[in-house]
């Protein structure tokens, strides 16, 4: 007789924001193998970028690949096209881009933390973090005019200037967020009932992280120090105080702590950007059509995002290839699930911070 049972999770489930299906093969409580299916939201954006839209509109189309890291998508595409056109953008535009990139990272990490708490059964913490996240959403709306899909970056600079009132409001709200995040840090390290759900669960060792090519907070929680912000020079991340955050345990708790430290680091970077904001124009007109190939990498909230753009001197591009962070992490996900209890599966899944509409495009 067969001794295992198959339990499906998805494609529609209360703990999931988006459709993905996992098939768990369980022996009693233990998961012994996992099968995943991620293609539910495939829309065909890469194809539409080469047939439907001209190159100057694609920056706004690729933002719709993912609502959570929309800014990283449009920034990566724009950086690739700027490389092909061969212009230099002003320093003020670069600083404003960093500002919005880090604000986006803060709100994405806070959403992930609250979702992890909800899936572990801690509803009160979910409500607390979601309530505090509104402070960040408020300043994003002030800065760009929209809460989620910003459409802030265009080829040659940014669309909106910042004034002193907005800057003052950003500093005030970020100070508030910082106090709250320090409070969570205490909660996540010392709360006994959270530690039962998070400490020692879903662990990934350093060797496995290296072998499976883990990226983003998932790898940094295991002690692998990779961060694209440290390796690129399109934007001056090191100038505004970027610091690598790593932990060594590799369990859910370590991932949460890495995210909390990254929020603090991002707040520091935002404050440095605002205090050292250079004078000048926010937009320079770049002429010509993209011709040739360019590859650009950026650090999205979930890890490395890669864009490959190929143009042939006309308004339509020849190829746009998007490699998203969650796509690269799926082998690690399947590896971590094996040997864990089925009851912990939703919390482990939320701690990866998966983004399936990125993955399927």
């Amino acid at each position: 007789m067969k001794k295992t049972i198959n339990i499906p999770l998805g494609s529609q489930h209360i703990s999931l924001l988006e459709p993905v299906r996992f098939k768990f093969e369980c022996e009693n409580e233990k998961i012994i193998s996992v099968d995943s299916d991620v293609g539910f939201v495939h829309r065909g954006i890469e194809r539409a970028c080469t047939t439907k839209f001209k190159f100057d509109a694609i920056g706004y189309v690729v933002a719709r690949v993912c609502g959570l890291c929309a800014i990283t998508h449009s920034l990566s595409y724009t950086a690739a096209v700027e490389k092909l056109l061969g212009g230099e953008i002003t320093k003020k535009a670069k600083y404003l881009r960093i500002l919005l990139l880090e604000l986006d990272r803060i709100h994405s990490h806070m959403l992930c933390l609250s979702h992890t708490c909800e899936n572990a059964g801690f509803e009160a913490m979910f409500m607390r973090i979601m309530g505090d996240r509104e402070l960040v959403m408020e300043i994003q709306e002030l800065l760009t005019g929209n809460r989620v899909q910003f459409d802030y970056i265009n080829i040659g600079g940014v669309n909106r200037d910042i004034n002193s009132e907005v800057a003052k409001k950003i500093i005030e709200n970020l100070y508030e967020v910082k106090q709250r995040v320090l409070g969570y840090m205490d909660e996540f390290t010392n709360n006994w009932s959270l530690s039962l759900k998070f400490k020692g669960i879903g662990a990934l060792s350093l060797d496995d992280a290296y072998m499976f090519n883990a990226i983003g907070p998932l790898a940094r929680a295991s002690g692998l120090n990779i961060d694209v912000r440290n390796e690129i020079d399109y934007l001056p991340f090191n100038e505004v105080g970027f610091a690598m955050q790593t932990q060594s345990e590799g369990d859910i708790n370590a991932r949460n702590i890495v995210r909390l430290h990254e929020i603090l680091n991002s707040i520091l970077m935002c404050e440095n950007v605002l205090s050292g904001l250079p004078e000048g124009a926010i937009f320079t007109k770049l002429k010509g059509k993209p011709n040739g190939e360019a590859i650009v990498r950026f650090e999205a909230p979930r890890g490395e995002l890669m864009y490959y753009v190929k143009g042939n001197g006309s308004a339509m591009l020849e190829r746009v290839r998007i490699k998203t962070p969650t796509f690269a992490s799926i082998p690690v996900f399947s590896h971590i699930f094996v040997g864990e209890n089925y009851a912990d599966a939703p919390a482990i899944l939320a701690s990866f911070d998966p983004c399936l509409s990125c993955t399927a495009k």
Partner: protein
Amino acid sequence: MFDLKKYRKKSPWILHYNAGSCNGCDIEILASLSPKYDLERFGVINTGNPKQSDIFLVTGPVTYRSRERLIELYTQMPEPKVVVAVGSCTCTGGVFRDMYNVEDGIDRYIPVDVYIAGCAVSPELIIDGVVKALDILEKKSKEMEKPLKLFKEAISENGVVNRRNVALKVGEVHEEN
């Protein structure tokens, strides 16, 4: 006694399904359930079970893979039910219109009661749409509970009530009601 008629409007349950959206509207639905906007003050609760829910929030242009699941969820919900299309791409296809793996909007497949426009939708609009959906839900449940008349008015002749030939034919039932 527990009165379903009275309390259905006070505590409608929401089912949320992502049919291929970019996550933008989904996180705004989460935000509208959170303390600042607090959709739960209307008695709304987010549930994952189609068999217990009254309001169906759909985001995203329907992709070919999620199409069958969307209709499966819709058919599993009990009557009365209200469908709310959240976001521009759910209403018309939006920026994804005419892409090769996308149906343009959910109203090709299921009837929609409330359309909410915007990319991404703001939480205020979501709350407005859900409150509108509550009214439609009340109207629908009243219509369902209305009794169906199967007899005509009896004719009285010289003080004697004649109850012969008062049954309605199939075609006449709808005219009378």
